[in-house]
Structures are given as structure tokens and as C-alpha cells.
């Protein structure tokens, strides 16, 4: 477990910035309790500082996880957000999409979000912007990338994709093994 390096932190923040915009500031300097980012076994964790301090007592190979796992660095050293970041993103998201109840399951199985399933969308969402996807009762389901802007969405035909899938809460079941580093092995 170690703090992120300059290049790593830039990558992480860039990804997060796509979803939360200027609210990134609120993530880094939390008003209630200080939090920090830690890298452990190529995974990035968002941890409360007191927990982080306690975690120092545990040896590296013994430490399975701490705090919230927001993503991981791939083999080619690219940062990828994982489903664990959902809570963080949902709390501070700038652009949101709401899924109709009928196509909730489709999304939770890892499919892209279609126009027919789009219940609501934040105004002024540009294309290729990170969006957090909610159910109609405001339960965060996952996140992705907007395929079209809000304006374009209006004229889209129902079978067109409006958001590309990145992560959804179904992964907790589907990719249970991948949740924690080393469990697969």
C-alpha cells in the first residue's frame, strides 16, 4: 500500500473528472472526514485516513482490501474505474441518466443503454461525457459514457445506444471473483 505517484494520480483524477467535473474538489477535500487515495496491488482505494493509518499495521500480502476500491491499473498501466467507485460518483455526478424499470435488467446484465430504456436525462449532457446511471427511483445502477448529447437523444430512434456501459452493480455477482485482487488465482 502506497500513495499514488504524480502520473498515477493524474490518470485517476482525469477519469473521475469525466464524471464529477468540478465536484472532484469535494471528493478530495471532504468536509466531514479526511479521505485519501492509496494504491495497493495495482488497485486504487479511496480510504478514510484513520482506517488507512490502522491498515499500515497489516503486511502487504496479508492486506486484501481497504476502504472503497475505485479502480485498477491494467497491465498496460491504464487506469480503469470499477464498480466500487459508483457510490462516490453517484454522490457527485454532473450528468445522469435514469433507466426505465423495463430495461433496468438489461443494463444490469452489462448491455449498453438504449434510447427506449432512457427514462430521463440531465439537460446539456454532451456526447462522450461520463454519466452515472440511476433507476427511476434514484438508485444508482452503474456508470458509462454518453453516446449522444441530450439534444441528439431527442431525435434518436428507440433502438439507438445512448450510453455505453462501463460498470454496473450486476458485476458484484457476475464478476465476483474479480472484486478482490488475487482471489481469482
Amino acid at each position, binding site marked *: 500500500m502506497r500513495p499514488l505517484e504524480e502520473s498515477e494520480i493524474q490518470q485517476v483524477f482525469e477519469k473521475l473528472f469525466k464524471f464529477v467535473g468540478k465536484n472532484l474538489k469535494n471528493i478530495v477535500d*471532504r*468536509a*466531514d472526514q479526511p479521505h485519501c487515495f492509496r494504491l495497493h496491488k495495482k488497485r486504487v482505494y479511496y480510504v478514510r485516513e484513520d482506517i488507512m493509518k490502522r491498515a499500515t499495521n497489516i503486511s502487504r500480502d496479508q492486506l486484501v482490501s481497504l476502504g472503497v476500491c475505485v479502480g485498477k491499473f491494467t497491465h498496460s498501466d491504464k487506469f480503469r474505474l470499477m464498480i466500487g467507485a459508483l457510490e462516490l460518483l453517484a454522490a*457527485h455526478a454532473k450528468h*445522469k441518466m435514469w433507466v426505465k424499470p423495463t430495461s433496468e435488467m438489461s443494463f444490469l446484465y452489462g448491455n449498453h443503454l438504449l434510447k427506449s430504456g432512457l*427514462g430521463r436525462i*440531465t*439537460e446539456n449532457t454532451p456526447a462522450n461525457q461520463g454519466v452515472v446511471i440511476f433507476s427511476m427511483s434514484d438508485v444508482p445502477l452503474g456508470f458509462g459514457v454518453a453516446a449522444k448529447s441530450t439534444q441528439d437523444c*431527442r431525435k434518436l430512434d428507440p433502438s439507438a445506444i445512448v450510453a455505453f456501459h462501463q460498470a454496473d452493480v450486476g458485476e458484484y455477482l457476475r464478476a465476483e471473483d474479480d472484486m478482490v485482487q488475487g482471489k481469482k488465482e
Partner: protein
Amino acid sequence: MGKRNKRSKGELPLAAPGDGDDELVPDDDDVAFVKSHRGYGAFFGERLEVEGIRVATTKRRKKGPDEDDVTAEYERAPRTVASRAENGEDDAPKTLALPVKRLDGTVIHAPTAPAPIEGAGVDDNMHNITPAARAALKKAREEWDRHEKESKALDASEAGAKKGKKARKAEQLANELGKTEYRQKLTTDKWWDKKKDGEGDDDDEGDDEGDDGDSEDDMDPAARARLSQARAAAALEEEMSADERRESVKARVGATCQGVMEDPEGKWADLREVCKLCEDRDGQIARLAALSMVLVFKDVCPGYRIRPPTPKELAMKVSKETQKLRDFEAGLLKTYGNFVRVLVRCGGGKGKSRSQRGKGGPDSATALRCLCVLLESLPHFNYRTDVLSALVPHLSHVDSAAADAVAGSIANAIKADMQGDTTLEALHMVAQLVKQNRCCCHPAALSPFLEIRFDEGILALEAQKAPEVLSRKQNRKKRADEREMIRKARAEKEKRKAEKERMKSFGHRDDSDSEEEDLEAQLERDMGEASGRMDNAQKKKMQSRMLEATFEMYFRVLKNAAGANPARGLPLMTPALVGLGKFTHLISVTFMADLMEVFRQLLAGDALSTEQKARCLLTACEVLSGHGEALQVDTGEFHRQLYAMLGQPSSGSSGWGGSDKRDGSSCDGSSSADRGTLRIRALQRFLGGYSHVDQGRVAAFAKRLAGAALCAEPGEAVGALGVSRQLLAAYPRTRCLLENERVGTGVFNPAVDDPESAVGLAAVLWDLALLRHHYHPAVAAAADEVARMPLAGAVPPALGSHAPAELARLHSTTRGDFRPAIPPPKVGKRARTSVLDRQTSRGGEANVLTPGDELARIIAAERTPADERDRLAQTLRRHFCETREFGVNVGLRAEVARLRRMSIQARERAEERRAAEAAKAKKAEKAKKAEKAKRAGEEVRGKKSKKKVKA
């Protein structure tokens, strides 16, 4: 002399056309003489004519035998006889053969000119006209008689000894020159004179004078008589004082207008006289004339637009009736046009200079009113464009009353407008005005267009016809087809043309197929016009043009407000927003994005007042909800604005800090009292309304609403609490605000103006606890209601069935009332009061402040003459006496009370003193006793010692 001369020249035609033949009488030298000086003596022209009313017949008869034109005499003869019989005049000729000089120096030459009016005609007409007019005429005649007597007296005394200088000169000339030559010169002179007079008239009446003469020639005798009678009356009026003239003109105008209304097709020509009066120098007369003209036109004008007949139609031979109708139409149109021109000239508003407005004519307010009435009652008639274009500029002026009047009349016109062309015209004009003035117009300018009725069915049809989506290939094919079609049509045309040419060269005459076709089409169009029906396509075109113009205007206002240099005060903003809100369902989807963008800019900028912002939000909400799109768009930006506005302190009565200085801007009848409710309405629409909102956001709103209610005016507080109750009811998860437990992560941040990041779910509604002790019972009840909501499950509807906005309006204290009414203070133990207070509470006040019985009776009684006044004075005196005595009495009582108090005090003090003395006396007695005892003891001791000594 000069003055009168000028006046008469300006106003009157010298002689009616009827007297042309008499002027050519060659023999009579005197006649010739007078004729030769006709031009110079124009000042008495009118008098000659009026003289003619009475004298002409006798004169002519006397002259009859040696007159050349026997046939004319013959024609006139029966009427003359009749008139003589009627008038009962004696046959003695009343000639004034010699020139007369009057006291004021005017020379009256012998009135040898035949009268322009046949006396019989006038007298025949006397029983046609109304009594008022008859009276006026009679009066005028009497006056004339007086003048005549005067001049007769003069005539007797001076006997024509003095002739005018010019007259003498002319006589000399006549002696010198041969008769014929002189006559020749005479005729030329006369011709010149006549021409000149004619010109003068032309100047006065404008262009219609030219054929006025023509029409007079072929007028029926009755009309001619009426005309000349009117002229005679006008001539008479010249002599009167201003007041008399007004009365007389009033009567005349009334009679004429009545006549025209009774028989418009027969008597329309009379309107010209009234129209002339509209340009009178005397403003009052012009005003009366204009107002009555408006009424007449309102009544008389046909329900269709008059179209000038084509040359073909003119060439056609028509029946008598048609001709009459045609004449009527043409004449009416001309008169109407002149009248409108006068009104437009006078009602030009303040923008025009005095010279532009011209001298004569009604004042601008009257002219404006007339124009308004014309627009409202004759929107279909000709010259509507002129009327509108004169009215519309008033909307940009500062004069609020004028702008309101104009807006009202335009609104009425639009309301009554079925075809839509009036509306469209007004729209274009106002839009142009708005454009030119850079949106700096009176707020009333846009209000008329709220009345436009858009036919949604037709417009919807158009909207449904969406452009079909074609692939590139299909597109190309379609375009090619179109091109082909156009090419073919063109080729066909060419071919036909060539063929025609060819045939022509052979001498073949075309049987004008196309012309016939044209005629048929035209006929069809005319029929359609007559039936007042529009086919669908036309209607659709009109409607869409109207819609386009309306929205263009509104968007211009919005864009201007959002632009770099907005109009000062944004006067048109509120009406534009109201209008947009009303026609929101008609806004094309393609505009929506732009519109929302403008709204966003407006809300982000600080050009708008808070009230306008609220209105803006409301409109945006209406626009969004009105569309019912398949795709719901989350309006985060608007929510943020609303949230930020809620955070701003609301200042007292005006609610939401918006103190609106411009009174005119409240155009949908929302008075100052409703401003607080405006905000509530916006809130309700946005949150409780159509779309689903984030829970966190809702929670933040609920919290902020409760906080705003703490410092808001009671009405608004009730509304805010109502809205927050609705929110909590609709989103059950947010009811955790009512609990002590913390839900969700983070801490509520009340300082952030963004409902998303404020972490509303972590807040606690402690404000309710304070609000339950609010001084206003309604607010306290509302807070209690919110606080008692169940934490889970469905919530029963609120006790009152009112919407929050309605509640807010109901409980608003901005109007100065309090609901429920404040109970009067309880009468408790009587406090220590002054004597007077005690007096008044015993009913003394009634004695002091209400007048006595008698006084009241007198006041109630009807107006009093002199003796009653005495009684009144007496009673008043007594009343005041009593009042004074009462005052004195009060003073005396106070004095008595004071004295009594003093005496009590004095008595107490005396008693005290007495007590003190008594005490002293007791002491002294005691001391004395003690002394006595001592002394006694000593004596005893002395005795004892004595005894001892003895012993």
C-alpha cells in the same frame, strides 16, 4: 374690415353654382358693377346669399320680364309662386339698390346678385330637419333681420352718398370704356375671381373638391338644397360669437348625422360638411364633429371592404339602383378617407411637432379615441392600415393612458377578428415597432396578442407532417424527379406559346381561354370573400404566419434581454414571458433548444429583477411541461436557480425581494399582492409538478423552503410549507428529514446554492419546531401538519384542499388584512385613567363627538335656503356652545377633584399633626406624672427621714 374679409374668404364658397346665368345679365349696370367687384367684396358674399334666402324671389320676379333667359325663369316660376304663398311675404320689393356703408366701414353693394338658394327649397326643408336645427336656423334668421334693419337705417341716413373708393373707380372706368369692352373685361375679371375662390376651396378641402363640383351638378335637388342650406348655416355661424357658433354647429351636426343615419344612401353627401367641420379651428367644434362622424361611420359603413370599380365595370351599363349604390360607396369611401386622414394628422401623439399636426382639428386625445373606435368597429373596412399605423406608435410613447387605450382597442379588434388579417397586420406593425425601439416599448404593447386565437387543429396538422427521413439515394431520386417535373412544365409552356404565335401569324384569334379562366377564378374568389369563409390551406397559412410573427416578437424581447445591451428596465419582459407561457404548446420543437439556452442566460445574468426571474422560471417550466415530450429532460440548471433564489432573503411585502417600480408591467392582472404567490407557483410547478426529481435535491429544497418560511411573510410561509409538505409526501425517502437519525453520507451544507451538492438528505427540519410557535395561526398549523407527517407509507391529502399557491394568496398579509381576523383586545380591569377618559368611557365621547339630534336632522335634511341657514347657524352655535361648556365642565370637575384631593391631604396632614401633638401632650403628661411621683416619693422619703429623724 380686413379681419372679417379674410375669414369669409377662407371659409365659404362665394355663390352656389345656380347663379351662373344671372351673372350674365348684360343690361343692368348696377349688377355689372357689383359683379366686377365681387372679388374684392367677398366679405359680404355670404350675406348676399343669406339675403337671397328672403329677397331673391321678389327680386327675381321684379326683374323677371326684362330678363333674357326666359326659360330659366319659366322653370323657376312655379316654385317661386309656391314660396311666395308659403312665406306670406308681401309683394313690395325690398331692394337695396344702392351700396351701403355700415358702421364698421364695410360697404355693402346692392345685393343684386341672385341668391344661391331657392327660397322654396329651404322652406320646404324646414319641416324635414329636427326642431333643434330649425330653432337654430330661425335664430340665425332673426339675427340676419337685425342686421338688415341696421343697414336699412344706415341706408336712409347716408343714402349711398359715400361709395367705396374702388366702386367709384370702377364707375369711372365704366364711363370711360365702351360697354362691351367693359363687359369683356368684366367677364375675365370674374373668371379670375372665381378661379381664385375655387382654389381657396381646394386648399381647404383637399383633393375631393375637384369632383365635388361635378357631383353637385348631378345631385338631386333635395341634396343640393341641403348642401346649400348647410353652407348658409355655416355662413351665418361665421357671424356669431364662439359660444353661439358652437351651439348652432352642434345642432347642425346633430341634425345632419341623424339624417345620414336614417338614410345613408340618400344623404351621404351631407357628411362632407361635417367632415369639413372636423378640421375646424375651434377645437371643441372639431371634437364634436369628429366624435359624431365616428358614430355615423360606425353605423353607416357596410360590412365589406369597398373596392374601386374596375374600368370594365365602369364601362358597363348599370341599373339606377346599382349606380346609386356605387355612388354611395365611392362617396362614403372618399369621405371616410378624408376623415381618417384628419384623425391621423391630429392623433399623431407627442412625437409630432405642432406643424405636422396642423392647425385645425380635434385634440390628439379625441382623435386617438376616434381612431380606437374606428379600429374596433370597422376592422374590415378600408383604410384599416392607416388607422393601425397611426395607433401603433402610441405604444412606444410614455403616455400610459394612450398606450393602454390603444392596446385595449387592438385587443378588441383581435378578439373580434375571425379572418386573421387584422391580427397579422397589427402583429407586423408592433413587431416592427419593437424591433425599431430595441424593445423599449410600453408593457401594454404586447398584451393585445394574448387574445389571438390560434387554431390548434390546423397547426397540429402541419406539425404532424414531419419531414420524412430519406436515405441519400432516395433523396437524390426525389430531387431528380422534381427537377424533371419543373423542366417538363416549362417545356409545355414554351410549346403552347410558340403554337399561339404561329396561329397568330395565320390571323387566328385566340378565344381567350385563359382570360375566361381568370374570370372564373376571380369570381370564385369573390364568392369566397363574400361568404367570409377561408379554405383550410389559406387559414393554415395565415395562422402559421401569425404564429411566426408572434414568436419572433417574443424571442426578440428575450434575446434583447439576454444580449449585450438590454433595454432599460426590460419593460416588455413580463408580457413576453406571459405570452410565451400562454402559447407554449405551439412553440416548435426546433426552437426549444435555443429558447432554453436564452432562459439559462437570462437566469444566470443579473439583468432581470427577481420577480422577472421568477416569471421566467415559471414560463420555462410551462414551456417544458407543455410539450409533453417522450424524453424527459432533467432541468438541473433551473432547479439551481430556484434554489439560489429561495436562499435570498425575501423582503417584506413585495415578496422575493422584487420591488417592482413599473406599475404597467403587471399585465396579467397580477397585482403586488400576488408576487409572493408567483414564487410559490413557480416552486409548485417545478417540484410538485410534472417530472421526477432527485431525492437529494428534493430534500435540499424541503429544507430550504422551511428555512425560507422562517423569515418570510406569513402568506408566503404558508405556501412554502405547503410545497414542502407536497415534496415530502411525494418522495417518501426524504421524510428522513423529520427524523433525528442521520441518513446518507456527508453533512448538509446550507451555504451552498446548489441543491445537488448540499447533501439535503443529511439535513434535519428543525425549522418546523420554531414555526410551530409562529405568531400567525395558519403558519403554525401548516408547520405542525408537516412535522406530524408519518415517516413511512402514504400520506393523507392536506386538510385544506387548496393548492399551496392558493393558500399563500389567501393568507397573504400584503393586502393589509389578517386571516383569521385578529380578535379585539379584551376589556380587562380598568386602569387608572384621567377624568376625561373616564368621562368618555361613560359615554361622554358620544356627547362630545357626535352632533346633537337637531344638528343631525338638519344635516340630513335637504338643501336649505336662506332662513334654513339661519337655523343651521343657530344650531351649530348651540352645538359648539354645548361642546365648550362640556369642556369647561370637564375642567371644573378636574379642579374639584384636585381640590378634594388637596383637602383630603390637608385633613390627613392636620390629623397627623394633631396626633403628633397628642403624643407630645401625652409625653408631657407622663413626664408630669413622673415628676409628681418623684415629688411624692421625695415627700414620702422626706417624711420617712423625718420620721427616722423623729425616731
